[in-house]
C-alpha cells in the first residue's frame, strides 16, 4: 500500500468515526410516528397510573408514541438538570415549584402562549394557574395542589394508646406525642424533621416568619434556624425521632424514609405521595395536619405541588402540549390518575371525580377538605437558588445529627452558604 492510499484509508476511517458521533439527534419520529419523551418523579403507584393514562393517550392519538421514565425526586432533580443543561430536556416534564424560576429564566421551558388553543385552561383556578408564570409568561401548568401532612401508621399508633393528633395541635404537643410513642413502642415516633427544609418552613410560618422575603432574600436568621435544630436535635437524642443513620437514608422516595423502612411510626411528607406508604403498610396510614405555632398560627399551606412544562426546543411542541392537555383535562385520564399527584386543578373534573374517589385518593381529598379555609396564603415562588439550598439544608443538619457540629454552628454555616447561593 502506498503512502497516499494509506492516508486515504485513514482519512476514510476518521470520517466514519466523526460521522458516528453526529448520528442520532434524539428521538423525534420512529416509523412515521411522533415520539415524545415524558418524565416525572414519584412512587410506583403514581408510575403505574401515569403509564395507564399515557397508554390511553396513545390509543386516542395513534400517531403519537410517548416514551416515559420516572425516578425518585432526588435522582430526578439531578438528571433533569443535566439533561436541560445539555440541551436534551424531555419534551414534557414534571416540575417542582422550586424549578420553574430557574428553568424558565434559563430558556429551557416553552411559553404556553406559543401553542395557543392546544391547551384549555378555562377550568383552572386563576390564582393557582398564576403560580406557573414567570415574568408574566405561562411557562408551566400546575397539575395539582398539595399540602404537608403528618402521615402515620394507623394501627401502631392506636395500639400504643397515645392520643391521636388533633386539628390545630402545636409543635410542643407534637413533640410530646413523639416522646410518648417512643416510650410506649420502643421506636422513634417520627422522621427527624430537622433535615427537611419543608418542615422548617412550616415551623417558621407558625411563628409568623417566612423562608424568603419579598425581594428574594433569606427571611430568617441563624438564631431561628439554631432554635429549630436545637429543638429537633434534642428530640433525636431522646430517641423520640429517627436516628442519624436512619435519617440520612432519606432520598425523596417513601420507601427509604424511616416510616417506610419500618423504623419509625410517622413521617412528615406531602399528602399525595404518601399513597406510596400503602404498599408498605397494608394495614393503613392516616393523614394528620402539620403542627401549628404555639399560639395556633398554622404553618402549612396549599402549594401547587407539581407542574407540567414543555421544553423550549421540543421537536413536536404541538403534540407535547396536547399530552399536557390530556393529562389535565381529559375526564377518563382524571379518573385513572385520581389524586396520585393531588386533587386535580380542573375544577369541573375535580367536582366530577370527587364522589368517585376511593381508597387513598379519598383520604387525600378528605384531608385537604379538613384543612380547607384554615390555612394562611401561600408564599410566592421560591428563588431559583432554593432548589440547591434544599439539599444544603439536609446536609448541614447531617452535621448536627451526627454530632459533628452544634446546631448553632451548623445554622451559621447554612446562613453563609445560603447568602452566597442567593447572591448569584
Amino acid at each position: 500500500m502506498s503512502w497516499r492510499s494509506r492516508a486515504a484509508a485513514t482519512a476514510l476511517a476518521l470520517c466514519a468515526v466523526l460521522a458516528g458521533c453526529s448520528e442520532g439527534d434524539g428521538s423525534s419520529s420512529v416509523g412515521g410516528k411522533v415520539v415524545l419523551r415524558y418524565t416525572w418523579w414519584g412512587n410506583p403507584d403514581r408510575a403505574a397510573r401515569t403509564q395507564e393514562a399515557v397508554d390511553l393517550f396513545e390509543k386516542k392519538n395513534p400517531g403519537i408514541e410517548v416514551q416515559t421514565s420516572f425516578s425518585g425526586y432526588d435522582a430526578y432533580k439531578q438528571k433533569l438538570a443535566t439533561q436541560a443543561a445539555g440541551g436534551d430536556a424531555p419534551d414534557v416534564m414534571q416540575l417542582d415549584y422550586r424549578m420553574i424560576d430557574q428553568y424558565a429564566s434559563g430558556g429551557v421551558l416553552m411559553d404556553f402562549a406559543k401553542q395557543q388553543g392546544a391547551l384549555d385552561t378555562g377550568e383552572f383556578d386563576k390564582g393557582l394557574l398564576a403560580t406557573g408564570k414567570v415574568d408574566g409568561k405561562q411557562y408551566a401548568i400546575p397539575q395539582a395542589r398539595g399540602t404537608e401532612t403528618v402521615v402515620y401508621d394507623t394501627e401502631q399508633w392506636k395500639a400504643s394508646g397515645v392520643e391521636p393528633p388533633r386539628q390545630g395541635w402545636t409543635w410542643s404537643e407534637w413533640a410530646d406525642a413523639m416522646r410518648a410513642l417512643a416510650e410506649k413502642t420502643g421506636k422513634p415516633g417520627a422522621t427527624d424533621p430537622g433535615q427537611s427544609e419543608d418542615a422548617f418552613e412550616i415551623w417558621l410560618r407558625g411563628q409568623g416568619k417566612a423562608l424568603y422575603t419579598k425581594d428574594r432574600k433569606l427571611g430568617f436568621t441563624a438564631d431561628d434556624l439554631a432554635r429549630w435544630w436545637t429543638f429537633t436535635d434534642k428530640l433525636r437524642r431522646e430517641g423520640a425521632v429517627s436516628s442519624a443513620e436512619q435519617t440520612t437514608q432519606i432520598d425523596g422516595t417513601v420507601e427509604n424514609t424511616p416510616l417506610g423502612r419500618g423504623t419509625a411510626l410517622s413521617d412528615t411528607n406531602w399528602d399525595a405521595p404518601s399513597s406510596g406508604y400503602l404498599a408498605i403498610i397494608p394495614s393503613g396510614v392516616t393523614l394528620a395536619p402539620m403542627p401549628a405555632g404555639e399560639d395556633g398560627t398554622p404553618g402549612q399551606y396549599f402549594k401547587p405541588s407539581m407542574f407540567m412544562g414543555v421544553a423550549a426546543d421540543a421537536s413536536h411542541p404541538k403534540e407535547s402540549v396536547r399530552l399536557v392537555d390530556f393529562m389535565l383535562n381529559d375526564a377518563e385520564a382524571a379518573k385513572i390518575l385520581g389524586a396520585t399527584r393531588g386533587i386535580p386543578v380542573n375544577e369541573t373534573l375535580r367536582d366530577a371525580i370527587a364522589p368517585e374517589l376511593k381508597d387513598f385518593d379519598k383520604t387525600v381529598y378528605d384531608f385537604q377538605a379538613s384543612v380547607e379555609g384554615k390555612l394562611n396564603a401561600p408564599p410566592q415562588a421560591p428563588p431559583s437558588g432554593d432548589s440547591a439550598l434544599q439539599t444544603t439544608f439536609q446536609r448541614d443538619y447531617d452535621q448536627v445529627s451526627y454530632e459533628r457540629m452544634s446546631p448553632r454552628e451548623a445554622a451559621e454555616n447554612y446562613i453563609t452558604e445560603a447568602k452566597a447561593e442567593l447572591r448569584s
Partner: protein
Amino acid sequence: MTTTQLPTAAEPRRVEVPKKPPRRQREGAAWVFLSPWVLGACVLTLLPMAVSFYLSFTDYDLFNSPNWVGLRNYTQMFTEDPRYWRSVGATLMYVVIAVPLQLALALVVALALKNMKHGRAFYRSAFYAPSLLGASMSIALVWRAIFNDGGTVDNLFGTGGWVNKPGWALFAVALLTVWQFGAPMVIFLAGLQQIPGELYEAAEVDGASRWRQFLSITVPMLSPVIFFNLVLQTIQAFQVFTPAFAVSAGKGGPADSTLFYTLYLYDRGFVASHMGYASAMAWVLLIAIGAITAVLFRTSRSWVFYASEGDR
C-alpha cells in the same frame, strides 16, 4: 516518563531491524495515523480545558450566558464555603487510606504469584478481574447493598450499615478501590520478573533470610515500579467519583464523610447549576494534583533506586 525504566537484564538482546523508509515519510505517516487522536485531544480535551478556565472566572449557570466575576469563585471557595473544606478533608483522608492499602495488597499478591510454579496465568487473570468490573456502576451499587443496613456485612458481623456511619462509609468506599488492585499488581509482577535471579542466589549463599532478601533486594530493585504505581494511583485516587457517588447514593454522605472533591464539584456544577464555580474547583484540583505529584517526584530522589544510576 522517567519512571518506566526498568532495570534490564545483563545481556542486551539483539533484534533484527528491517530497513527503514526515509525519515520524513515516516513522520508524515505517523501524523496521519495519529490524527484521530490529535483531533480528539484538541477538541475533547484542550478546548474544554480552555473553556473551563475561562468559565472559572464567570458566574456561568448552564442556562444563561456567563458574566465575568473575576476571582469571586476562588475567594468564595476558600473563605465562604465550609463544605468545600470538608470535601478537601474527605478526599485527602481517602487518598491516604486507599492508595497505600491498595499498593500493599497489589505487592503481596504479586510476590505470591511470582513464586507460583503452576497456574500463574489463571490466578493473575482472576486477581485482575475486579479491576475490570470494579469501576462499573453496578458493582458500586452492589457494594452499597453489602454495606447497608441489613446487608451482608451487617448480617455477618452485626456492625450495622457502614454506609450510614461517617468514618465507616469512607472505609467502605476505600475497600472498593483497594479491591481493584489488578493494574498495579500486574505492573509489580512485571517489575519482579525483571530482578536478576543471581542477586537472590548470591544473598542465599550469604545466608540472608527471606525477609532480609525482600528488604535489601526486592524493595530497592522494585522501587522505580513502586514509585510509578504510587504516582499513578495517587492521581487516580484524587479523581475518584463513581464509587463514592453510588455508595453514598449520590449525596457524599453521611455527614459529608464521602463528599469527595469530584463529587462536590459535580454537585456544584450539575445539581446547583454553578458551572463557573465548579470550573474553578476543577482548576484548583488540577493544580493541587500537579503540586502533589511534584512533591512525590522530589521525595523520590531519596528512596527510588535506578540500577542504571547505581552503575555510575
